[in-house]
């Protein structure tokens, strides 16, 4: 039966992911003896957890009103705004940090305005800066995921509620809150775990060694101390945290099961009066918060766009190929796991979330150790980068697909089974059309993320194999700050174009 084939494939993939992530860890951890953390490592662990909890909590709390406003209002530029929500998440870290500093930094627009008004400037450096940056990166992602939740509620439910004379509070309690209960834990989990492995952002905006994260300790262990076992030990701590967070999120999340609708577009009721004014305010505020740093990146990069050196274009082509290949792999795996998870199993979700906790540095170093006796590292640069990018972006693709795959299964499984629609036909006529919106969004996100990643390629790349992010880094390293800014703008534009293209494709097919 098709169900069985799906389960087997999913199980095989889950084992594969486990191997890909754990084998490098094992390769590093061979010399591990005993398990205890030094005081400095404990302090790093505390800071890491604290900033991750704050960042995840704040991102989700701020995302709810924004998602709600977007779900119930229609205005010019709404589509553009929703698509742009993906942009902060796909910015390369150093570019995003410079963009944020142009707005919130010491000499940034906000402080210039404040001093212009005779007020005292605010400092971004410290825990507040770390959380601000993490909210900038992740709040838009949360908005998109929660918005999908709102859009997945069949329009019939809202109409029924209206005809029963439900007040907005009743609608919230009986329809919207159960949806949030199903979606929020997963969203918070993803953001929490992303922030767990943050390192350049945390250190740079944290203002000094107070803001040391576990990932920085891993970096130090691998680079300066060459303490492979120590790095493996810290990576295990990250895995344990991720597992615990996953367990908590799974317990909190409840499935909704609103039943199937006819797939008509619609949204929650859109009351006039003060709720409208509030929604307008929320949307303007969110748009400004996200758009200003991106505007700074664009203004910075524009001057040199026309005379970019040819290497930049070659690297861009290489990055595009990697991104598309990673997207194909990642989406195939994510869809299989999401469909398996929809049948009420927990392990596919766990397998798909594991890569979040993986330090790309540990992953790259471990794979290097394993592969290097048999292959020339440079000959593996592209395939390894594709595989790692696909693995690291899998959790996002899965999180986006899983809730809707679940409702799809709950709502349509009996019907399709009784009609005898199984296997490929089911995929073609039921699954893909119903899931095209999340599929498009997931594909866009994965493609854009794979454009931006540089962790692993740096370890394997030989001469003439640089990807665009690596080239941006090299340009900056060679003092070519302006060219680097322009190459970064190219990177951002390409990432965004990929994201936009896939996302639009998904949304067009969803409404058709």
């Amino acid at each position, binding site marked *: 039966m098709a169900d069985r084939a799906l389960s087997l494939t999913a199980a095989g993939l889950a084992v594969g992911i486990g191997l890909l992530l754990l084998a490098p860890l094992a390769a590093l951890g061979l010399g591990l003896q005993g398990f205890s953390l030094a005081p400095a490592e404990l302090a790093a662990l505390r800071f890491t957890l604290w900033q991750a909890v704050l960042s995840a909590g704040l991102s989700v709390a701020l995302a709810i009103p924004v998602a709600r406003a977007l779900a119930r209002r229609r205005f010019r530029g709404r589509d553009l705004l929703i698509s742009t929500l993906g942009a902060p998440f796909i910015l390369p870290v150093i570019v995003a940090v410079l963009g944020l500093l142009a707005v919130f930094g010491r000499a940034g627009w906000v402080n210039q305005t404040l001093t212009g008004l005779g007020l005292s400037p605010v400092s971004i450096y410290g825990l507040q800066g770390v959380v601000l940056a993490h909210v900038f990166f992740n709040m838009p992602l949360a908005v998109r995921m929660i918005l999908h939740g709102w859009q997945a509620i069949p329009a019939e439910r809202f109409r029924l509620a209206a005809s029963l004379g439900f007040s907005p509070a009743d609608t919230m309690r009986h329809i919207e809150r159960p949806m949030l209960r199903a979606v929020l834990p997963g969203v918070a989990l993803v953001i929490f775990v992303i922030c767990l492995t943050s390192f*350049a952002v945390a250190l740079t905006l944290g203002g000094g060694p107070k803001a040391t994260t576990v990932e920085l300790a891993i*970096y130090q262990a691998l680079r300066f101390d060459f303490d492979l076992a120590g790095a493996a030990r810290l990576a295990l701590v990250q895995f344990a945290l991720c597992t615990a967070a996953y367990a908590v999120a799974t317990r909190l999340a409840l499935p909704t099961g609103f039943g199937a609708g006819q797939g008509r577009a619609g949204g929650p009721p859109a009351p006039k009066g003060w709720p409208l004014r509030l929604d307008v305010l929320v949307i303007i505020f969110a748009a400004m918060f996200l758009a200003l740093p991106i505007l700074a990146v664009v203004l910075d990069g524009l001057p040199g766009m026309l005379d970019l050196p040819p290497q930049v274009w070659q690297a861009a082509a290489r990055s595009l190929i990697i991104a598309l290949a990673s997207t194909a792999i990642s989406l195939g795996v994510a869809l299989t796991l999401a469909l398996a998870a929809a049948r009420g199993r927990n392990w596919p979700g766990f397998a798909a979330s594991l890569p979040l906790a993986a330090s790309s540095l540990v992953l790259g170093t471990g794979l290097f150790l394993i592969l290097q006796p048999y292959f020339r590292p440079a000959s593996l640069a592209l395939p390894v980068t594709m595989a790692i990018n696909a693995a690291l972006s899998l959790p996002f693709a899965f999180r986006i697909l899983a809730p809707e795959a679940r409702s799809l299964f709950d709502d349509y499984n009996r019907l399709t089974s009784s009609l005898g629609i199984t296997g490929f036909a089911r995929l073609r006529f039921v699954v893909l059309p119903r899931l095209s919106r999340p599929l498009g969004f997931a594909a866009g996100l994965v493609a854009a993320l794979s454009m931006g990643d540089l962790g692993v390629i740096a370890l394997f790349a030989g001469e003439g194999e640089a990807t665009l992010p690596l080239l941006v880094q090299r340009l900056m390293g060679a003092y070519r700050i302006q060219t680097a800014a322009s190459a970064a703008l190219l990177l951002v534009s390409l990432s965004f174009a990929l994201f936009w293209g896939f996302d639009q494709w998904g949304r067009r097919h969803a409404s058709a």
Partner: protein
Amino acid sequence: MTKSPLALAICTAVLATAAMAQTDKPVLNVLTYDSFTSEWGPGPLVEKTFEAQCGCDLVFSAVGDGAELLARLQLEGKNSTASVVLGLDSNLITLAAATGLFTPHGQNTANDLPVPFADPLFLPYDWGWFAVVYDKTKLPNAPDSFEALAASDLKIVIQDPRSSTPGLGLLLWVKAAYGDRAPEIWSALADNILTVTPGWTEAYGMFTAGEADMVLSYTTSPAYHLIAEGDDSKAAAAFTEGHYLQVEVAGKLSNAPQPELADQFLMFVGSDAFQSIIPTTNWMYPAHHLAAGLPKGFQQMITPKKSLLMTPDEAATARKPALDEWLTALSR
């Protein structure tokens, strides 16, 4: 639709591998850091010049920076296909020697460094003074010591000694200049340190974006802006306590697949042909005086009155306690 990009990618990967086609020439593999081999670094010109005289194929493979180089070498161990490693920081050569992977280079150890430096395993090829770089147009009177900097309300971006070689250099600079007073200096500097970045790139990017008044870099950094951009607004502050040196070295691996070519390359590294490429590509000083002198513009750089450098063994011993002092002073 999902299939074609994958197929394309596989084709590309296969083609890329095939393109490393065999040539009959012997191949000399040199392991170095990223900014050396990049299109804007010394790599391309070094490769062209050396290949013209060796009848071989010089292939660079690159990792992040001097510290990562050592980690990479330890990962590869005796499996390394490299014959020469180029770009280790002198502060790390005790660690590098301890791996037992290096063999004496056998070259003449005479050089023109501002402090005596001779090592049987590691050959210096360039060097620079660490310095605090600032913008003359925004800061007419730069501080002339760490103590003056600490007394000012200027903001500086520095690099983390746990993840970057300039960061480690600064740590040893303060230690070499102030000894037991180093913790006191760091405590006084704490409110001047705007932030600490993981690497040089982030710090220098923040400085050029106008976010900080000063940045830890090299005395030769303003030469880039002057020579390549015609911008003379950047300057390095001369510190009375002296400036710590970064010396970059090359070494020969004992398992070198091409030992003769390695010797020939190390000989080339000390020659005027190699040395004259360094100033305007690596933006450091060459290890030997150039026949034609330094390029125009370098004469405007400051020359510190005093040069500081710990011996490799001193640096190896000092690193851990100095790091603890630094962490304690800045974590408050």
